[in-house]
């Protein structure tokens, strides 16, 4: 259970930042999203990103309580955000699915 919550927290953190990143036009295009469709998805990506980050916090707090939970979330945020940045650098197409484009 505790491993599952940890994985969940990490995944939600990564996906949350991916959403926030794709809400920016630059990252959206790098991930292969269509320029015209961006405005339509933007708000959804931002809300989704924030909700996922909150879910990550919830998972951390549920797993570890307030003390360790807060530390876990705080450090996961940095790790997740940097992981998203590196994905956009080296494998941006991995985030392509989040742009709503059908994988070819």
């Amino acid at each position, binding site marked *: 259970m505790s491993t599952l919550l*940890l994985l969940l927290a990490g995944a939600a953190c990564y996906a949350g*930042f991916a959403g*926030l*990143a794709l809400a*920016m036009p*630059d*990252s959206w295009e790098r991930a292969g999203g269509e320029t015209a469709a961006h405005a339509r998805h933007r708000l959804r990506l931002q809300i989704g990103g924030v909700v996922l980050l909150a879910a990550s916090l919830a998972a951390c707090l549920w797993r*570890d309580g307030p*003390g*360790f939970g807060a*530390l*876990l979330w*705080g*450090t*996961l*945020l*940095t*790790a997740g*955000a*940097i992981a*998203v*940045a*590196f994905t*956009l*650098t080296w494998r941006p197409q991995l985030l392509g699915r989040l742009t709503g484009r059908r994988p070819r």
Partner: protein
Amino acid sequence: MQRKPTPRLLLLLAAVPGAYLLSALAVGGIGAALAWAGLARPEAVVLGAMLGFVICLTALLWGYRTALGWLHTWAGVALGGVLFAVFWMGTLSVFDREIDRWMMPATRLQPAPPQLSLDRIAAAVKPAVPAKASQWRVDLPTDRVPVLRFTYKAGADEAPVRQLDPALLTLLPEPGSLGASGFIFPFHYGLHLKWLDLGKWIVGLAGMAMLVLLVSGVIIHKKIFVQLFTFRPHKSLQRSSLDLHNLTGVLGLPFHFLITLSGLIIFITIYYPQAHTSVYGDNKAAFSAEAYGKFSRPKAKAPGTLGSIDAMVARAEQEWAGGRPYFVRVWHPGDANSYVELRRSYAHDVTMNLDQIYFDAASGAILNRFEAGPVMSVQRFISGMHFIQFEHWPLRWLYFLAGLSGCMLIATGFLFWLEARRARHAKRGLAGVRVVEGIAVGSVTGILIATLALFAANRLLPANASLASADRASLEMWAFFLTWLATLAHAWMRGRAAWRDQAWIICAGALACVALNAITTGDHLLRTIVAGLWAVAGMDLMLMLVAALAALAAWRMRVPAGVARASIALAGSP
């Protein structure tokens, strides 16, 4: 940016002591005022001192509000070397106990049995305690430390820590090494400069500079949101190192800021002694006793007995609602007024509690109980965030990665400074780039090589090695410092090529350490993994990872054959 450096330099020299003096005065005033207003005295001191760092930071930033870019550049260049050393050693300290196992092969034991009899331990160490000892202490094994640690004090001399096998209760051979917890960790906060606490003050200055750098960096960063996730390694080195600098700085900001601030707050009594002197005068001992707890009673100078420590532990666990002790200390052993101190473990909590219970040694009656006040508990939570003495593996790894991102932040800061000026300095014949590049190489790749030299010396020196008055453990330290000096000299001689040279040395050194461990102890990777000695296996795996990354970096920095020939030809032409 560089037009009029002199007046600003003078301003800087005035502003730093100015901000500190201002905050020190404020700390003294706040401490005294809070105590006068009725807050418990130790609480007033701790609150005042903790606020000092915030006041100092605010004063510095306010003083430089018109020159934050300049401040960021020059504070970084001036203190980047110290900062990298502190971050590197701090990052390694996250796994100090694991590195200890690697550096002290005799302690590569299986985990200790969960229930240890302290009465049996007391009987086992008794022969090693001299008659005149004023106290002896045993630290119990933990998940990360499979040995018992025993020490005593007799008069002025404090015996070095001896390790015991918890299963057999026999003394292990002297490790002949300070290990990571004795060398790397103290280096992290004191640089091993003990005179006048100079090392701690330099680290404190660098820490305050780090806070200033972080805040000013965010303020001068013009595209903080647009480039939040931007890293473009294929662009120029100047561009890509700035990307990485911004990335690690902004995304790692909460960690870097809090780890630095908490590191400063640990040493409130060193950096802000005004807090306790304004409330307690010269009586620091009274402050320590009231804030951190300490019971004492004089010797009776008549013989006495030691009752069952196990019974005292059982009593303490009741008092602490299941909390377990992590060390036992017997004061005035053998005296009629002897007493036993138990400290509560904080292995499962961020806050490093100060809970302690004192028992009469003969009867086992409770003499005194201590628990920290609320403000002190906040200070201990902040300290615990920094010390990570708790058992939490995911968090430990995340701290390690975040620490590495801090190292990257500092190194890329250096790189950006160098690349932004390289062409200009060369054209105008300025020495700046050459000097700073020497410092940068020496403090980044140089300290990595020096660390590897420490590990290699640890495996190469014979068990009873000594030279002049230096014992084996000191020789390991000398290997570190002399190697570091050599890398600095090399960096100054080789200029830009030193990065590549030293990357290759790191690769070779890390692989040599793995080989030396296998040869001198027989604990090669296959065996340690099968035996579940994860501390040793992890260290070897990390060394191999370092070697691979260093090789990759060195290979990427290779000079294409054509360019090399051309530059040799160019250098050879009159």
